[in-house]
């Protein structure tokens, strides 16, 4: 079955950069984009999404809020929060929501751990 | 530094070709060569475009030194012989002499591949026929790379290695900087010997690692906390570390400058904190003095590189303009303050002027108060090492002078009417002016002076009236004053000049005069500029220091190239030897030797320029010396050039180093030859002259008296004024642009200055060049010491030699030579090993010692040796030692000196000769 990743970031450039990184690591994954939290919720309602990568600093609801909401709804979904705001508080909150923290700028190096972990988890037989 | 090929270095390139190139290429070629753009020039007249010239940027780009590229086709840079579209395109374009640009995959000397963007153009001669081809190269690999991170890594690795290498070389060459490395995880500090010596630490312990607290232990209490904060920053990831602080060792305070960097691991955690430490105590003193002088004298300084949008400025500069203190200001901001009718403060933005001095006066509107002030600027243009023109100058406020000048004009008018009609206002001005105001009669004597005369110079009015101006002038400036006065009395217009006036107490004061003749009398206004003169001296000094800095960078680059040659050659040999292949070992050794010799030649040139070479000055007969090299000269000059030797009768003997003098004359003759491509006449003359202090104004150490003049005159092309002005400049002459000025002029200059003489040069474009060397006269007869015998090294007979040398490589070499020649050598590194032996009863035949040792100097050790062994012969080895620059003063009887680098044979011969003469002289010392 095809894997779908949703990239949530208000910056188009950031979405392109993250998209390229994902494409390099997992060429087969299908990529969807959303420009803010509400849009992301709408996309998820419309299509099945397996993996989510969320920017923290966005207009409207911030990325951690969204991550926490999604975690409530999808306990096993691989979620990452990507931000240059590397404050210990932010890292801790991401951890508390069981989301992976990726420092911006996002590079293959930085995203590899999360993406390959997600791929492994998705390939495992689902309950 | 790779130059446009000179015949000395590349005898295979005819000088005619070089001159054509210079004529066709002109100044833009100069500029390109000096720029950061890599360029190659090939000869289009010869088959397959052999390389005639490459610049330093090319050497840096490809890793190939010029010597390895010359004569080859550029194709050698291509790693594969495979045909490509780009190569075909280049071939086609070359066939029709059309310009072409193409990207080719090339290989650096170290094997690394890179994409080279080549743009080739054909240079045509006066008749339109192709003569040369010029290509620029640029590394465009980044356009071909796919992964930015990998690209970055490669680039930073290369530049890091480069920086470290440079650092190491500069350090060892200059012996000035100490290096440290702080391992963050293990909390250990490793430092080199120089660092240890600045900090008063033991060198061996520092090299093997100390607890990091050692970094702060010697630091002055007041600076320690701030240093700790800065270091804490670096340890937590701050990249830039730069701190000046004081270190206290044995109660002595030294200022040091520490510059460092933090290196991160892959996960961006700080790994190491490393940097270099320089002792800046002296520099600091100069800077402080300069700063005080500048603020006290209200002189602001600035430096502007043509083409840039900003100028570097001093605090006082900003203050004079009413701006907030800053280190750099946009030129637009500066010039906008200048009155629109007056000349701009910073001129030459397009870099059209490249040398000479400039001074102008202008009005500004102060940025803070809006007040209008008059400022004057004085400065100097010079060529920057990296290309471009640098304008350095000072500004100062002349508003009061300007007002006084206006007042003086007024005064002059009124005086013409009637003296009684002076108004009160004029009286006040006359009385209160800080500037000297006066009237001089047609007899050259003072008729009226204002009270400022008494205030500044101490003489009272009664003493002054009726005194001639000359009598009030400093004796050395009296001639200048007299000639200005004479011209003015003949009705010549206004004169402006600076001379020293004599105060009542006898001290000189510099006064800047503006003098106007009017109706038979002369009206003068003089301003005290003593302070400013001092500053100008200091400015010159600080420029010199900067030049040294620039020079160091250039040398590091050159040395890197040469070291690459040496190390690479040795490494290849080592590999071959380990493979048991000895067939072409010689070739690599030869290459390493050549690089080594080039390096030796460079240090020699530098020492000569800095007047620090070891000179063996002794009385000599110039005529005899010139005749002895006459044959060599004739051969060098060739048949087209007539050599005339014209030695005056009864020539005095002179004092100089004969080897250096020979090479100076030879160098000049070679320059002359190059300036006479179509033949001509070279005259070498000698005569006795007497030089006054004024004649020697530009000499470093010359004193008025008798000199022997050596004149080298040719009938060649001559030099234009701007070239002449820079003829002795090492930056200029090491990049000779074709005619006349050869590599050696700065060297000749340095040598003669060090010999307490002087050099003068006269040249006009089209009518030849005359260079006069003045050597101090020797009172007495020339030495009759015969030429040194040059015997082959004879084997020794088991004599005992004590060797003191701290450099293990040199020590190994010396010991090896001695052992092979059959001497018994005792090996020591410094006074700790050597003194016990010297003071023991051991039999010694000879002491060989380095001069500059880490602890006690070689000279001191020799004294200790002589205390118990009076006749012990001593041979010093030195690369450069300030004290050894004058051999006669440095050496006692039975002591000799050999300069590093030396050939193995040379050392053998010297040891042999010393021991043989000693054997003849008397019993050996116990």
């Amino acid at each position, binding site marked *: 079955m095809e894997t779908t990743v949703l990239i949530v970031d208000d910056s188009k*450039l950031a979405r392109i950069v993250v998209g390229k990184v994902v494409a390099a690591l997992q060429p087969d994954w299908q990529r969807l984009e959303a420009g803010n939290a509400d849009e992301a919720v709408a996309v998820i309602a419309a299509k099945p999404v397996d993996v989510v990568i969320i920017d923290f600093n966005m207009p409207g609801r911030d990325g951690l809020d969204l991550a926490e909401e999604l975690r409530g709804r999808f306990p096993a979904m691989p979620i990452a929060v990507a931000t240059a705001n590397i*404050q210990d508080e932010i890292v801790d909150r991401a951890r508390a929501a069981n989301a992976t923290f990726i420092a911006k700028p996002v590079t293959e190096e930085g995203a590899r751990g999360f993406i390959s972990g997600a791929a492994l988890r998705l390939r495992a037989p689902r309950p | 530094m790779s130059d446009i090929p000179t015949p000395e270095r590349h005898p295979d390139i005819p000088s005619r070709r070089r001159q054509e190139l210079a004529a066709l290429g002109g100044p833009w070629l100069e500029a390109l060569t000096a720029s950061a753009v890599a360029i190659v020039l090939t000869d289009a007249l010869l088959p397959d475009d052999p390389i005639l010239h490459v610049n330093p940027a090319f050497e840096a780009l490809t890793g190939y030194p010029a010597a390895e590229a010359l004569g080859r086709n550029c194709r050698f840079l291509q790693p594969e012989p495979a045909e490509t579209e780009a190569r075909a395109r280049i071939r086609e374009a070359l066939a029709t002499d059309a310009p072409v640009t193409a990207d080719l995959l090339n290989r650096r000397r170290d094997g690394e591949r890179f994409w080279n963007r080549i743009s080739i153009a054909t240079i045509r001669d006066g008749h339109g026929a192709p003569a040369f081809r010029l290509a620029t190269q640029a590394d465009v690999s980044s356009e071909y790379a796919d992964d930015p991170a990998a690209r970055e890594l490669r680039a930073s690795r290369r530049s890091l290695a480069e920086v470290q290498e440079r650092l190491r070389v500069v350090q060892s060459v200059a012996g000035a900087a100490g290096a440290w490395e702080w391992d963050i995880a293990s909390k250990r500090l490793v430092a080199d010997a120089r660092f240890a010596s600045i900090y008063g630490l033991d060198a061996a312990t520092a090299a093997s690692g100390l607890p990091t607290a050692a970094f702060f232990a010697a630091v002055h209490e007041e600076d320690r906390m701030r240093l700790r904060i*800065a270091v*804490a*920053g670096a340890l937590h*990831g701050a990249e830039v570390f730069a701190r000046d602080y004081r270190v206290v060792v044995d109660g002595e305070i030294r200022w040091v400058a520490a510059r460092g960097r933090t290196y991160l691991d892959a996960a961006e955690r700080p790994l190491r904190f490393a940097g270099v430490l320089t002792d800046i105590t002296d520099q600091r003193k100069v800077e402080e003095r300069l700063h005080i002088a500048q603020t006290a004298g209200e002189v602001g300084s600035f430096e502007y590189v043509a083409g840039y949008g*900003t100028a570097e400025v001093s605090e006082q500069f900003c203050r004079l303009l009413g701006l907030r203190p800053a280190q750099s200001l946009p030129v637009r901001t500066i010039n906008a303050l200048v009155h629109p009718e007056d000349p701009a403060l910073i001129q030459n933005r397009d870099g059209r002027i490249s040398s000479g001095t400039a001074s102008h006066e202008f009005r500004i509107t102060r940025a803070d108060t809006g007040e209008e002030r008059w400022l004057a600027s004085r400065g100097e243009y010079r060529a920057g090492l990296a290309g471009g023109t640098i304008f350095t100058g000072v500004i100062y406020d002349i508003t009061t002078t300007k007002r006084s000048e206006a007042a003086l004009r007024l005064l002059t008018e009124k005086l013409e009417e009637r003296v009684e009609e002076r108004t009160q206002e004029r009286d006040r001005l006359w009385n209160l002016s800080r500037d000297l105001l006066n009237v001089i009669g047609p007899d050259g004597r003072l008729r009226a002076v204002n009270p400022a005369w008494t205030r500044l110079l101490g003489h009272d009015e009664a003493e002054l009236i009726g005194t001639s101006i000359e009598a009030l002038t400093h004796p050395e400036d009296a001639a200048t004053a007299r000639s200005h006065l004479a011209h003015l009395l003949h009705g010549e217009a206004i004169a402006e000049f600076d001379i020293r006036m004599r105060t009542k107490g006898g001290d000189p004061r510099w006064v800047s005069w503006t003098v106007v003749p009017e109706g038979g009398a002369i009206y003068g206004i003089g301003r005290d500029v003593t302070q400013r003169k001092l500053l100008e001296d200091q400015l010159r000094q600080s420029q010199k220091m900067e030049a040294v800095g620039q020079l160091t960078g250039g040398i590091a680059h050159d040395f890197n190239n040469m070291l690459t040659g040496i190390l690479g050659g040795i490494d290849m040999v080592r590999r071959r030897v380990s493979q048991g292949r000895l067939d072409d070992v010689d070739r690599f050794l030869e290459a390493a030797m050549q690089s080594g010799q080039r390096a030796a030649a460079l240090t020699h040139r530098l020492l000569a320029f800095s007047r620090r070479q070891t000179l063996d000055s002794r009385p000599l007969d110039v005529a005899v010396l010139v005749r002895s090299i006459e044959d060599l000269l004739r051969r060098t000059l060739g048949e087209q050039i007539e050599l005339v030797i014209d030695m005056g009768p009864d020539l005095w003997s002179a004092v100089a180093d004969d080897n250096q003098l020979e090479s100076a004359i030879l160098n000049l003759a070679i320059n002359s030859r190059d300036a006479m491509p179509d033949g001509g006449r070279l005259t070498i003359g000698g005569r006795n002259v007497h030089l006054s202090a004024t004649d020697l104004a530009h000499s470093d150490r010359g004193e008025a008296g008798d000199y022997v003049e050596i004149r080298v005159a040719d009938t060649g092309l001559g030099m234009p004024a701007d070239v002449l002005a820079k003829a002795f400049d090492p930056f200029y002459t090491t990049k000779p642009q074709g005619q006349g000025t050869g590599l050696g002029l700065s060297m000749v200059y340095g040598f003669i200055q060090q010999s307490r003489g002087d050099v003068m040069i006269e040249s006009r474009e089209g009518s030849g060049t005359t260079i006069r060397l003045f050597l101090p006269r020797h009172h007495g007869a020339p030495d009759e010491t015969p030429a040194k015998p040059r015997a082959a090294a004879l084997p020794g007979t088991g004599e005992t030699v004590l060797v003191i040398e701290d450099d293990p490589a040199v020590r190994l070499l010396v010991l090896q030579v001695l052992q092979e020649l059959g001497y018994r050598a005792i090996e020591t590194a410094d006074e700790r090993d050597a003194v016990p032996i010297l003071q023991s009863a051991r039999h010694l035949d000879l002491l060989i010692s380095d001069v500059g040792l880490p602890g006690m100097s070689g000279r001191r050790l020799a004294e200790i040796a002589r205390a118990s062994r009076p006749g012990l012969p001593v041979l010093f080895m030195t690369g450069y030692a300030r004290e050894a620059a004058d051999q006669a003063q440095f050496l006692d009887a039975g002591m000799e000196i050999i300069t590093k680098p030396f050939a193995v044979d040379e050392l053998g011969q010297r040891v042999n000769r010393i021991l043989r003469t000693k054997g003849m002289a008397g019993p050996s010392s116990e």
Partner: protein
Amino acid sequence: MSDHVVPLEEMERDALTELVNIGVSRAAASLRKMAGQQVLLSVPSLEVVTRGGAATLIRERESGDLVAVRQDFEGVFSGRALLIFPESNSMALVRAVAGSALSDAEAAEMEDEALTETGNVVLNSCLATMANMLQRPLTMSLPQVVRGNGVGLFELMQVSTEEGGVVLFLYINFAINDRDIRGYIAMLMDLPSLQALRLLITEFIRRVIGDEV
């Protein structure tokens, strides 16, 4: 000079400079990753000036038009961080960071957007690192692009409404190797938070000095 006020001790200045140095080094590392180029930094300058003084400082350095990405921060200390560079460098910077991800036309179209994201990454890394060093959280606003000459930029930058307030002005020059791009990272802080900062700095000094040897 009346608009120069110095309420900071030398030692605190040093510590603050180092703090900024650490933050900016991290920011430079981010910029380096984005641009795939060497980024060179100057030693930071730090001045305590009036608002007018800060405007003058930039105005005297840059006479042309500038672009800035600004981001406000709030917490135990508050202020505004700016990434400033000459307008003429803007496209080159965008091209450097967008690199092969975008065509030239796309890059031109997205200029402001790309600048915002660049500023976001650079300023966030800097501020977050500083917050971590001080062990106090900071909230950051969304980044915003501002254009104008030096004067214009600073007139917009009234962080608080009080007139004549004193601000802490920090700036660092940076240059991107191989491309002709240079600029400043600047930070403006209010006086009330300046006092809060002093306390933090004192704490910071004690902490970092403690664990360095």
